[in-house]
């Protein structure tokens, strides 16, 4: 095996140890599990609700309510006497959680031009999305019954009941989207909440891996042996970056896949092709993330030179994590374009901002801006690689001497 290949093999092998690879694998699995969980809740809410009916009134309008419930829900209990509590118990035993009680004067009140009254008895075992949303389902059933009653009482047609048909065209920053503002907002929000988090994790994990790899060279006392062998220092750096990038690419693929999965979900939910990304967009996001990772790895390696242990590396990772977290929160809670010039410039100087804002830019077809961002990331990556090669060409990996930075690092590690 050629020396450089052997070095890359060694790096990949070291980084593929469980302590490094498990966190990378666990996170997408966690996201998928969360996605499956929410999907399960959606499925559950999509099913016919199971309800009970306790009708003390057997006249015509009470019948309309009962017919509506039987048509739109799975009526698991149907009673005409007994207490509501007993009806609720029976309903719960049959798998339902709510009982609609129709009092004996229901029809009579409507005939007297008064509002008919029903009472809902609901059993909530857990204060969760499912628990709260299931009662909303029963509420909508009662609204449906009210609508049917209106038709029965007045003889009105569907058109008379809802005479206005609405369709939406929303312009966001000049971009036309055939969806309601609510749907557009929901689609964007889901991306702004999850995408920056995913990208932030990719950046932080990759940085951590390379920094740990450097720290473990020192901890395992292998660095002096490695550096005294006939191999160019830049080859050692390149091997560490290539080995780290290999793992970083796996992370990028996993996280980009997760992003595509989330995007498809949003598109399906709102049916708006205008608020989804295409294949080229995903490729650009992947390129942006890749160069961001290369810069991160080089910077992490440079920082790792000054870490004397894995614990020290964790501490040195903090500033790097901070640089990833700042644009994440900025994107989640604000629109960078609306910020002042100073803050906006400060955020755009952080290389990690660019992959984080890339999906949003691409949604508005701002491909040029994304390409400029990628150009900046390439420059940053080249600068970071140059820095780490300079460090490895000096005796700093052995002495750990960081000059004036040494005092700062010492302060951070304390």
């Amino acid at each position, binding site marked *: 095996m050629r*020396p450089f290949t*052997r070095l890359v093999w060694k790096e990949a092998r070291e980084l593929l140890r469980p302590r490094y690879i498990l966190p990378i694998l666990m996170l997408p699995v966690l996201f998928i599990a969360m996605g499956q969980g929410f999907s399960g809740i959606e499925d559950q809410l999509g099913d016919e609700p199971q309800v009970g009916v306790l009708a003390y009134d057997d006249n015509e309008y009470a019948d309309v309510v009962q017919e509506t419930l039987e048509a739109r829900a799975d009526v698991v209990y149907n009673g005409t006497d007994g207490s509501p509590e007993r009806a609720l118990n029976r309903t719960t035993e049959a798998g339902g959680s709510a009982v609609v009680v129709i009092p004996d004067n229901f029809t009579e009140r409507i005939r007297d031009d008064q509002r008919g009254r029903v009472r809902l008895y609901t059993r909530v075992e857990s204060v969760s999305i499912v628990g709260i949303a299931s009662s909303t389902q029963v509420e909508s059933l009662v609204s449906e019954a009210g609508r049917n009653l209106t038709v029965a009482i007045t003889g009105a047609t569907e058109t008379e009941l809802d005479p206005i048909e609405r369709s939406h065209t929303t312009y966001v920053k000049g971009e036309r989207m055939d969806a309601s503002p609510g749907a557009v907002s929901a689609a964007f929000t889901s991306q702004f909440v999850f995408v920056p988090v995913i990208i932030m994790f990719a950046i932080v994990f990759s940085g951590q891996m390379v920094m740990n790899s450097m720290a473990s060279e020192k901890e*395992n006392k*292998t660095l*002096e042996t490695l*550096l005294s*062998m006939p191999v160019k220092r830049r080859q050692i750096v390149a091997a560490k970056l290539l080995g780290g990038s290999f793992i970083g690419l796996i992370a990028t693929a996993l996280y980009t896949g997760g992003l595509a999965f989330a995007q498809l979900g949003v598109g399906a939910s709102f049916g708006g092709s205008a608020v989804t990304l295409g294949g080229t967009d995903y490729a650009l996001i992947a390129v942006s993330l890749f160069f961001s990772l290369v810069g991160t790895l080089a910077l992490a390696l440079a920082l790792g030179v000054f870490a004397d242990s894995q614990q020290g590396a964790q501490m040195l990772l903090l500033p790097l994590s901070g640089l990833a977290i700042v644009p994440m929160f900025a994107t989640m809670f604000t629109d960078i374009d609306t910020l002042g010039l100073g803050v906006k410039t400060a955020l755009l100087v952080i290389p990690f901002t660019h992959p984080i804002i890339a999906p949003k830019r691409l949604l508005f077809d701002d491909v040029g801006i994304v390409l400029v961002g990628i150009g900046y990331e390439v420059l940053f990556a080249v600068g970071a690689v140059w820095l780490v090669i300079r460090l490895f060409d000096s*005796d700093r990996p052995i002495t750990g001497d960081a000059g004036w930075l040494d005092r700062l690092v010492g302060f951070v590690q304390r």
Partner: protein
Amino acid sequence: MSAPAVEVSGLQKRYGDVQALDGVSFEVRRDEIFGLVGPNGAGKTTTLRTLATLLDRDGGSVTVAGNDVDEAPAAVRKAIRYLPEEAGSYDAMTGRQFLAFVADFYDGDSDAMVDRGVEVADLGERIDDKTKEYSKGMGRKLLLGSALMTDPELAILDEPTSGLDVQNARTVRGVIKEFPNAERSVLLSSHNMLEVEFLCDRVGLLNEGEIVVEGTPEELKAEFDAQNLEDVFVEVVQ
């Protein structure tokens, strides 16, 4: 006639306010074992690291096998093997894989080097176990095997028998004793004066950043009218 294995002249190194080396000068000839001894903090490891191209120097000249350590570090690295006092191997590799990893960086038949390394390490079947399962002594023997298997012109050994039991230390000393020839030399640092006296053809005593005495063990004992090197050491350092 080929250049000496090592020529050090006026070597200086400073760490912040500390002058670690203050004009160290010595020579290691071909076919000899040179012992660098001295109290803790005398500058032994700094000297060895400079020879191994790991540290930059602040002054003086250092050549290894005729190559300046700053101007031709690649040639120096080809000529040497450095065994630091505190060294380790990669946890994810077996002993044999570690030897193969090291052998790939040197010219020659990698398989033959690995075979030689296995022989010197003398770990039996444990050579195919992960190195993280090795005891300290086993790890040291593996590293010594990896250091000598490449046939370096200069083997720089810092405390080579550190962590070894009596029997293994004796075996290792035998291997080191047999190593020098017309093309090969050893620069050795040790706190064990009996070991130094047994192994070394010449000794340089480093104290407070400079070589204070130098000669064969017999010459030094005669000069200081001492029974052994340990007495010489105590006499000089006091």
